[in-house]
């Protein structure tokens, strides 16, 4: 819409121009708008800044996450990092889109055997179902000993893949839980 102040005679830049005796009217001091005058980096409005690490490759560049009203307003490099000095590669620079993009799913989906479509189910239900599947498969495929009588104490019926994109703590719990369940086929990208 038309800028009100440009109609209001006093705030009319032309008036300012004459006051300033500015012939060219090229400078912001003459032609600048109110918005321009009050312009500032949005990061200044952030409620808090959270230190983070780039989730892409293994260089481990430092990142700063700016939050306002519990929403992300900006993610950029952390100058303090001795590894990256605030730099990011294109992927790292796109982290904002990675974590706030519309591509991210917020629903738990379930595809029954032979079904042609996903259906939405509650998280809790899904967790229960998964736990039951694990137990069932484990019990059915449990191996105690080899024919030679060597100890096995395991199941080959359940396997896991993934970890290189996860946190150490997560990998630790995965390894801890699955090993105690007798699952040996735990693998990740390190092998791929």
């Amino acid at each position, binding site marked *: 819409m038309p*800028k009100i102040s440009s109609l209001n005679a006093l705030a009319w830049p032309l008036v300012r121009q004459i006051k300033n005796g500015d012939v060219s009217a090229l400078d912001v001091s003459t032609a600048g*708008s109110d*918005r*321009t005058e009050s312009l500032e980096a949005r990061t*200044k409005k952030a409620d808090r800044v959270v230190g983070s690490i780039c989730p892409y490759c293994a260089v481990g560049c430092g990142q700063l996450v700016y939050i306002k009203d519990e929403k992300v307003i900006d993610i*950029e*490099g952390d100058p303090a990092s001795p590894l990256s000095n605030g*730099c990011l590669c294109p992927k790292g620079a*796109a982290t904002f889109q990675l974590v706030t993009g519309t591509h991210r799913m917020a629903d738990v989906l379930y595809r029954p055997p032979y079904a042609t479509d996903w259906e939405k189910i509650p998280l809790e239900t899904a967790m229960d179902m998964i736990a039951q599947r694990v137990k069932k498969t484990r019990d059915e495929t449990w191996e105690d000993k080899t024919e030679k009588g060597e100890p096995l104490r395991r199941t080959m019926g359940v396997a896991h893949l993934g970890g290189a994109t996860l946190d150490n703590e997560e990998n630790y719990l995965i390894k801890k839980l699955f090993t105690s369940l007798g699952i040996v086929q735990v693998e990740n990208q390190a092998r791929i």
Partner: protein
Amino acid sequence: MAETKGFFTDTTLCIGCKACEVACKQWNQLPDDGFLFTGMSYDNTVHLGASTWRHVAFIERPVPLTPQHDGAFSWLFSSDVCKHCARAGCLESCPTGAIVRTEYGSVYVQPDVCNGCGYCIVSCPFGVINRREEDGQAWKCTLCYDRLREDMIPACAKACPTESIQFGNLEDLREHAKERVRKLHESGAHNAYLYGATAEDQPGTEGLNAFFLLMDKPEVYNLPPDPCVPTKKVKDSWLAAGATAAAMALVAVGAVLFGGRERV
């Protein structure tokens, strides 16, 4: 009035990673420019535009980079950006005062003022500023005006992993750039030179606040060899216009006074 700020883009340090392009889009929250496979080496954004304020050019040449290099091939990268000319075509042609010269010497389009007349687009000798299809107004690099206000450096310069994009006080950058060229010449890279570093280097724009270190002809990077802000030449046009106006008046008066009479 703060000191004049600018970019020095040293193409010999560029690795063509496009971090600058994405960092710019992220900070300014620009939309994508379309998913377009161009067949132009690794360049799929093609040109600066309304939604692309940093653009990395990829040039494959059948000649070695310098005599020191083996093989008969080299690959040039150059991150192009608005030049923020000392004499800026877009600025001087903007009828609304939407485009202004900021306290940092940069050229800034005020999105709340621009009425999309489109005159700046044809007035830029570098083809930088543009209007997006769906969009009513002109857009271009702001030199991160909003960040400068908080003493933050522009997003592209901050992200650049190899310091190919350097931001700072124009004077310091110029000094540093000259030194850099000297070093390169010593190392045998004789075709290294500065593009638009000073008014002497580029009289047509009286120097670029965002200047470059290049290794080949400007045309190779899609940069004009001797650009000129149109307003430098507008005098001729006004004179011609004045003369025409006068002539028009004369003919009119003549026609009125003598043209009306019946010829015998």
